[in-house]
């Protein structure tokens, strides 16, 4: 991008500046620290100039928005055309209460739903299983059967909203329920828009809601790819997630690397199952974190987009434009929020929102200020949503595309993050791909090392967290926190007992037996799961059948 002669001239000017003016100032007044680093411990130079991006080729490395390699964004107009989807992750207690919260969020201007399920639901247990005791309705809504799902989306027209569901191991079951609810509303599956997370590899790595071993889990995922390609073409069949990897303590480069390595594994599995890459790749979506180091995060999003496009084109030979595009949801960083002086979290979330938007996200969840204390209250959720709206309507960063492009620092950091991530991906390839690297504990260990380093830096105050290890105050007890009614467990149990009396149990058993047989063979399981769901088989019953055939994943404990 730069003229060689000019660069040489610049180098000698820089040398002169360093030896002269800079040196004098440094002698008199040294800098605040010996080493400056990003939020992910990457060294940051004093000054970036064209010399740091001397090899940048505009056409090859940046291109135009909506064009390969999509560094500048996936759409030609970005936020000038349409703002990102403001999608607040919510759900707690019973389907009835969550349904109220969704309607509130829609009234407040949220533009897409995002369903949080409780842990028993995420791990395929019904509310009346002994292991579910104490967990029902806590971190999300409890869904035991199609009946709960019907209540969850009551009076919400499924052809009008797009719905994201954070569900992984039993994603096929919840997707089948969603389709069944839509059909009852008179909405056909081909009109449905939304996303299931459906990313099991990061569950093994970082999030923990796995059920089945790797192979059958990968089969369920490719079954969904295939089924949706035919029946639910507008559905995002997976949200390949770096969010939880980052929350578990990874660096920004590791977040890109481990997420894309998981992505590579899914693409390979689907190709191995006989699918054409351009049939399913356009529906792959991603999910990233946004932390406090604004410029590093922006560079991360840009690097991830470029790297994925290159992988899809060069490694998998994808041809459709949509197969090459990394479309992503972002959530602000839960682990960056402090329990101390929680109002400060509003500011952190605002910075992280800016990073996500300057990085070109397609949708965004902003965390609430009280999340280090409890589930967010309605007030906190509103402020979080308003933060997005202020960035959208008042900050001005939406008015032009990828405004930080061309910053010597941001471009140099984008290159560096892509390089680092690629190095990790090569290492994972050499271990036999993401599933093998997870089995060996390699990915987990890398993340844990980063998490531990971070903790030590906070404790020796190399890293300052305002209000937590510096600028502390005596604080009154926080008030106005949300409490989930402990009666929800009992309520769900009663609903289940009633359901099992009133449904056609013969039909349930027949459908479950057919599912079991299909699971033993090689058929696509989606149609069988859908039939079981429609007969009001419970989530636990369906997952038990699959547990029986597939077995359960055994965690590899790495310290």
């Amino acid at each position, binding site marked *: 991008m730069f003229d060689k002669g000019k660069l040489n001239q610049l180098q000698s000017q820089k040398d002169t500046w360093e030896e002269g003016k800079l040196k004098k100032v440094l002698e008199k007044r040294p800098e605040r620290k010996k080493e400056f680093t990003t939020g992910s411990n990457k060294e940051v130079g004093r000054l970036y100039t064209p010399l740091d991006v001397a090899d940048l080729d505009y056409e090859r490395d940046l291109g135009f928005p909506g064009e390969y390699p999509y560094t500048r964004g996936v759409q030609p107009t970005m936020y000038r055309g349409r703002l990102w989807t403001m999608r607040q992750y919510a759900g707690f207690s019973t389907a009835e209460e969550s349904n109220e919260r969704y309607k509130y969020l829609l009234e407040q201007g949220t533009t897409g739903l995002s369903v949080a399920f409780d842990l028993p639901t995420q791990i395929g247990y019904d509310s009346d299983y002994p292991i579910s005791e104490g967990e029902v309705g806590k971190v999300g809504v409890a869904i035991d059967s199609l009946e709960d799902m019907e209540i969850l989306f009551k009076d919400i027209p499924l052809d009008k909203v797009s719905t994201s569901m954070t569900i992984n191991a039993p994603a096929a079951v919840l997707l089948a329920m969603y389709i069944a609810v839509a059909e009852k509303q008179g909405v056909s599956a081909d009109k449905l828009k939304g996303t299931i997370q459906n990313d099991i590899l990061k569950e093994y790595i970082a999030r*923990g809601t796995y059920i089945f071993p790797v192979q059958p889990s990968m089969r369920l995922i490719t079954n969904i790819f295939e089924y949706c390609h035919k029946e639910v073409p507008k559905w995002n069949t997976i949200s390949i997630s770096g969010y939880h990897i980052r929350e578990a*303590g990874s660096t920004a480069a590791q977040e890109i690397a481990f997420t894309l390595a998981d992505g590579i594994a899914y693409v390979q599995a689907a190709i191995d199952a006989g699918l054409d890459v351009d049939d399913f790749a356009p529906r792959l979506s991603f999910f990233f974190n946004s932390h406090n180091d604004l410029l590093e995060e922006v560079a991360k999003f840009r690097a991830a987009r470029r790297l994925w496009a290159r992988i899809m084109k060069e490694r998998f030979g994808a041809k459709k434009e949509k197969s090459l595009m990394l479309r992503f949801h972002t959530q602000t960083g839960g682990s960056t929020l402090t329990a101390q002086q929680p109002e400060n979290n509003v500011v952190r979330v605002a910075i992280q929102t800016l990073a996500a938007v300057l990085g070109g996200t397609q949708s965004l969840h902003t965390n609430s200020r009280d999340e280090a204390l409890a589930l967010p209250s309605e007030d906190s959720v509103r402020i979080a949503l308003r933060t997005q709206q202020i960035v959208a309507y008042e900050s001005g960063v939406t008015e032009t595309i990828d405004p930080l492009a061309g910053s010597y620092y941001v471009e140099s950091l984008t290159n560096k993050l892509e390089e680092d991530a690629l190095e990790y991906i090569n290492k994972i390839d050499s271990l036999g791909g993401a599933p093998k690297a997870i089995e060996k504990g390699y990915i987990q260990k890398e993340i844990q090392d980063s998490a531990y380093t971070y903790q030590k830096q906070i404790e020796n105050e190399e890293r300052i967290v305002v209000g937590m290890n510096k600028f502390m105050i005596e604080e009154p007890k926080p008030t106005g926190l949300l409490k989930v009614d402990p009666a929800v467990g009992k309520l769900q149990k009663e609903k289940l007992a009633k359901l099992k009396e009133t449904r056609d149990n013969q039909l349930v058993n027949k459908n479950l037996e057919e599912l079991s047989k299909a699971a033993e063979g090689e058929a696509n399981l989606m149609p069988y799961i859908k039939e079981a769901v429609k007969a009001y088989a419970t989530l636990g019953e369906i997952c038990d059948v699959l547990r029986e055939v597939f077995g359960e994943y055994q*965690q590899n404990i790495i310290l």
Partner: protein
Amino acid sequence: MDRPIRVLVGKPGLDGHDRGAKVIARALRDAGMEVIYTGLRQTPEQIVEAAIQEDVDCIAMSILSGAHNHLFPRVMELLKEEKIDDILVIGGGVVPDDDIQPLKDAGIAEIFTPGTPTTTFINYIKENIIR
């Protein structure tokens, strides 16, 4: 009694957030303690059984899912049933203030909330184990 302090780090319930538990396990180990980490999805029964088998001085549990009011006291109940009163039991995680006193009343010695430096609970364990 010169053997190192033995601590069982446990994740009771279905919660998969183990960053804190693992950081704590490493910090305790770096502080010279012997650490047994039993991994995710442990029932209170499994935790108590492991604590007995491993003859630990302390059980340190972490929950971020909000199930602490059920699971922490359940561990205390089981210890009582086994007539064990010489294991220090502590907890950590996203535990609202209002829940802390009832948990202490149930026998949990201390609850550590987000932002606690590792040195705080390392010292707490050293000073409070029952020997």
